[in-house]
């Protein structure tokens, strides 16, 4: 068993803002070419990922905004999908965003070669639409906050140290930057810090936090499973869905330029629709709503990181992140896989063992 990691306590501000001077110094010293992190938008009404080279821009930075706009994986993908170009990037984002980036790198959509991922303990975010409307607009979210999104409320990986560096903080814990691998250790040294502090307090806090969340996740997603059991119940959960596919487009994993389900929408001829309408009395339009959701689950549930971008983007109030989390937990655990947690573990459908997946009583799946 490896030794428990040690970390470097950071002076200055509480929480993730303590990272900002370190990032600025990395740019000034040239140990990194650029930093990717959220900045406040010009209208001061939101946050957007910016690849920063000029340290002065970091004055507008907020490493952990109270809301998730574009997920970090998608931002990183837009920069590096055609190759990282040798640009050394310090990329700062939440654990779920980093897990999304890791899954995308397995899918060939993110180049992590010159990227140092910095994650941090995440207290959750508020719903994007409520934030945008102005009726829930905190400047920051605390670990005790109850108004976080439903998908955040059941997140047991909110403090998962998947980055090369991970920042532990919150609830009286002095910010501590912990290297999780060689790249992280090098980055820490380059920042002029030494990993000399004990991390047991952080580990205890995180362990009990994620245990509590795990229990809540099982309970709530279990209830959801009952409430969506069978076609009729599932259709009630999806009743307000207008088949706009916004969930798919917001999803970091869904990277196809043309989604198969967008093509399918146009393939039904007028008379086919009319015949179906005659046979059943009526057809809701557009068709194939359930097919879209089941199909998307089939395509990406094994890579789903439960970031909730889908539910934030849904204009019809469908609890889509929760439905996908419910399904993805099961599909991933069938392969003993948790998306984004292990960079070395191959995605389940592109690998196999000759003997595996036999049921409890010896029956094959």
């Amino acid at each position, binding site marked *: 068993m490896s030794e428990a990691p040690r970390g470097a306590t950071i002076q200055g501000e509480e929480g993730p803002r303590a990272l900002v001077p370190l990032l600025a110094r990395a740019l000034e010293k040239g140990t990194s070419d650029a930093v990717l992190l959220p900045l406040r938008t010009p209208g001061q009404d939101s946050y957007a990922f910016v690849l920063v080279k000029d340290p002065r821009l970091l004055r507008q930075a907020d490493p952990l905004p109270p809301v998730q706009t574009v997920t970090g994986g998608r931002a990183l993908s837009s920069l590096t999908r055609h190759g990282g170009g040798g640009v050394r990037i310090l990329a700062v984002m939440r654990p779920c965003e980093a897990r999304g980036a890791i899954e995308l790198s397995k899918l060939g959509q993110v180049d992590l070669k010159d990227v140092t991922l910095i994650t941090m303990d995440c207290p959750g975010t508020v719903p994007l639409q409520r934030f945008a409307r102005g009726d829930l607009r905190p400047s920051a979210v605390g670990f005790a906050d109850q108004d976080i999104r439903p998908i955040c409320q059941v997140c047991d990986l909110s403090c998962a140290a998947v980055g090369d560096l991970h920042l532990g903080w919150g609830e009286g814990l002095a910010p501590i930057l912990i290297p999780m691998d060689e790249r992280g250790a090098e980055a820490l040294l380059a920042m002029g810090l030494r990993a000399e502090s004990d991390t047991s307090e952080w580990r205890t806090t995180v362990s009990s936090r994620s245990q509590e969340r795990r229990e809540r996740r099982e309970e709530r997603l279990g209830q959801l499973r009952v409430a969506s059991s069978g076609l009729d119940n599932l259709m009630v959960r999806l009743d307000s869905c207008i088949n706009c596919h916004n969930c798919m487009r917001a999803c970091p994993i869904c990277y196809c330029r*043309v989604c198969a389900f967008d093509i399918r929408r146009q393939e039904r001829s007028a008379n086919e629709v009319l015949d179906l309408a005659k046979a059943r009395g009526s057809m809701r339009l557009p068709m194939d709503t359930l097919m879209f959701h089941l199909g998307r689950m089939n395509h990406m549930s094994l890579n789903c990181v439960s970031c909730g971008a889908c539910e934030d983007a849904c204009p019809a109030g469908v609890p889509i992140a929760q439905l996908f989390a419910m399904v993805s937990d099961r599909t991933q655990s069938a392969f003993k896989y948790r998306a984004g947690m292990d960079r070395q573990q191959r995605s389940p459908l592109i690998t196999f063992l000759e003997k595996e997946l036999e049921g409890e009583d010896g029956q094959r799946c």
Partner: protein
Amino acid sequence: MARGADIGTEMPKALREAVQRLMETGGFEGTFTLARTPGGGVDYFLSTKEEGAPELLPLHPVMPNHAGRLLREMTLGGAMRGKVLVITRPCELRGFVEIVKRLQGCLDNLVFLSVVCGGVFPLSMVSAGWDGKRTEEYWAYPDGRPVQGLRPACQGCTEFIPYTADLVVAPSANGHWALTAGSEEGGRLIERAFPSAPAAEMDPKALEAMAVARKAGREEVLSHEADVKGLSDLVKVFGRCIGCHACSKACPICYCTLCTFESSRMEDRMEQSKGQLEVKGGIRAPAGTVLFHIGRMGHMAVSCVACGCCQDVCPVGIPVSLLFKKVGEAVQARFEYVPGRDVKEALPINTFQPMEFKEMGE
């Protein structure tokens, strides 16, 4: 034009009964209209006379999807084989006509029933649990009083009278409503469905009252955030854009299966981004937010019918329908063009006169 028929005073009950009559007598294979979903919501359905049809809610004041977009998806491959009664709002019909001009849909066998339109409520209101209790209040709109809570695009809409519908539901004198004919086909359908109903026509006083209210509404909605004065305002208003492209996918005019802004042509390469990074000190990721919106204006502003579907689906409430309305109206006015007015009228950028716009290029 054939006479219009009085359908009654109590809305929406009178409308639903009139639609029933039309379905019974019109020889239609089906009806495309809003109806009740199993979960108690409202969405578009293609309904037939067979058993199992849901409760029809024609012209219920919501627009979950733009009907023109749905009609395009259905008729892209060819026309309906039999007559279908299509009940939509004027902007949905105009949007579909613009689509047909682009050879993406087919008008054949579709009989359109539209309305002197009072607007629709935003989707966010519906998903927040609005169950239509204010529907009766809503139908008092012909008196010109602004209806609270409508889509901003509707509040400022001055194109509330349909151009090409076969049948038009219109406010008539003394609180009555009329089903009027917009075409010969419409006239025949009215004769057959309401042979003994008293005659009634559109009330010009109601149209005038609505026009006044909408003109004021238009000035109001095109101010504030939508009044963009240059690049820095544009950057501010699109600052919170998350690049989901929901606006484009909800738009009836945007029909491309692979949008140019989602193609590899528009994907950044680090070799180029590096240069921008040096010059500016920072670049937004993903980049191209403002270019997407202005570029989309370049592609569809000539046909924008200001339906407001784009703003309805925007997760961050950007006044995109109002920006596009402003730009669309400016472009259309320059070409003296009204989108959807006449299917035979060519798209302004697909046609020309040799001796026009002499001031350009000299």
